[in-house]
């Protein structure tokens, strides 16, 4: 499917979704509450079949966080990007690790680096950071660490 067809199809699935213009791939903005439902449909719909989540990350915009999901279909080879705005003070979103298993590790990384709470995640613990770093959110722009960070 090309981007136009995808746009129509996704609008049908989730009428509240908005689309970004001028991006490399079709970019869809979704409310955090709708994300899991849409993701399930994207994975299961036989004409979409987004079975490969190749990148999951988070961006700190200082005022809010944005979760970014890059999806690919191994069958049709079309790509989309899902984005979801989160509140910076207590970010939370449904996990997608039940849809794509790779999200398990990627969400754990985002959890410790950005402090995003993934609801329903089976094993939300620190993966990369050592013990004692719970809740420190080192990848946020506001993070300061006078000992471990060297500014040039």
């Amino acid at each position, binding site marked *: 499917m090309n981007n136009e067809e995808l746009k129509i199809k996704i609008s049908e699935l989730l009428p509240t979704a908005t689309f970004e213009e*001028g*991006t*490399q*791939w079709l*970019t869809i903005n979704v409310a955090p509450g709708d994300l899991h439902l849409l993701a399930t449909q994207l994975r299961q719909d036989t004409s979409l079949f987004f*079975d*490969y*989540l*190749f*990148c999951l*990350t988070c*961006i*700190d915009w200082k005022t809010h966080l944005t979760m*970014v999901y*890059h999806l690919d279909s*191994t069958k049709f*080879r079309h790509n989309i990007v899902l984005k979801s705005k989160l509140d910076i003070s207590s970010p939370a979103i449904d996990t997608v690790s039940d849809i*794509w*298993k*790779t999200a*398990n*590790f*990627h969400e754990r*990384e985002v959890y410790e680096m950005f402090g995003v709470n993934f609801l329903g995640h089976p094993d939300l613990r620190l*993966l*990369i*950071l*050592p013990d004692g770093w719970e809740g420190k959110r*080192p*990848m946020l722009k506001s993070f300061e660490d006078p000992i471990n960070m060297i*500014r*040039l």
Partner: protein
Amino acid sequence: MVEEIGTTPEGDIIINVGPQHPATHGVLHLVITINGETIKKVEPHLGYIHRSIEKMCESLTYRQFIYVTSRMDYLSAHINNHACALCVEKGLQIEIPSRAKVIRVIMDELTRIASHELWWGAMAMDLGAFTPFFHAFRERETINDIMEETCGARLTMNYMVPGGVMLDIHPNFQKRVKDFITLYKSKISEYDELVTGNIIFQNRMKGVGYLSPEDAISFGCTGPTAKGSGVSSDIRKLYPYEVYDQVQFDEVLETGCDSFARYMVRIREMNQSIRIIEQLIDNIPEGDFQAKTKAVLKLPKGEFYQRVETARGEFGVYIVSEGGTTPYRIKFRSPGFSNLSALDQMARGSKLGDLVAMMGTLDLVIPDIDR
């Protein structure tokens, strides 16, 4: 006297494999639960070499941040640099000279061969055969010498820059690459004699670490790990960049889904890389090796994503720009991170000795996983 420690309530033993362990090739820490010799659970603990490269890159300019990526997957340093350079070029919307494109692809493929050579030796060493390690290094050193002559370094080259390559190829480059191809072809049969055909090796590999195609996709496995499960995932074929759409090569796929399939993918992939180099080495177009770029690079506001195929799988660079001289946010999608997440599923139910074979064929590079 001898105390009972580190056991689960069911009486299974918990063993720490790593962070200092001969088979983890770096500082990977796996906490495994075993019952006798049978693995029940594998739980990776990462971060022993985490340098937060993504955060570091936020304070480096678009020219500067590329060298850092050599330190991630140091065995695919060229390809990592290539991905970053491509992503910046995508943002700047500049077309690079065709000479630079061809040089980049040749370098990528040489890197891929060098990486697979090292993997071959190290994997055989994990299985207890030491000799292949030294034999693999003989060929790998030749590639390193070629790199040293043209790029000035053996491992962390920083050769790809936005707009092309940093320096033109050395006058000896073509001759030495051809010499290497001759050497490689005369030695590759030894690999089969020493390792591939060996009955002990085959028994250690076949049926070990089963990863179904569905799981491979779901876990985001790429590169030889996915190709060994028959999943077509070669970015060079699916989303061609540079001159990959103009050269003849096959995407190597095996359907065994086990460690032996992943092993064979890498061995056959080396031959495909040789094929690509053979097509290009005599056809490097004349012209500039670098496009004219401004002294200070500024990417327009927006998001840019570039996917490339490293020796380990799909490497992605995601740059979020606010229009300044430094990236606002960079995300590196490293292949090893996703491949490692499948290890638990692969290892459950197999023997402790198999874990080594599985880790060997996943070809884990720890700085690539930790970033």
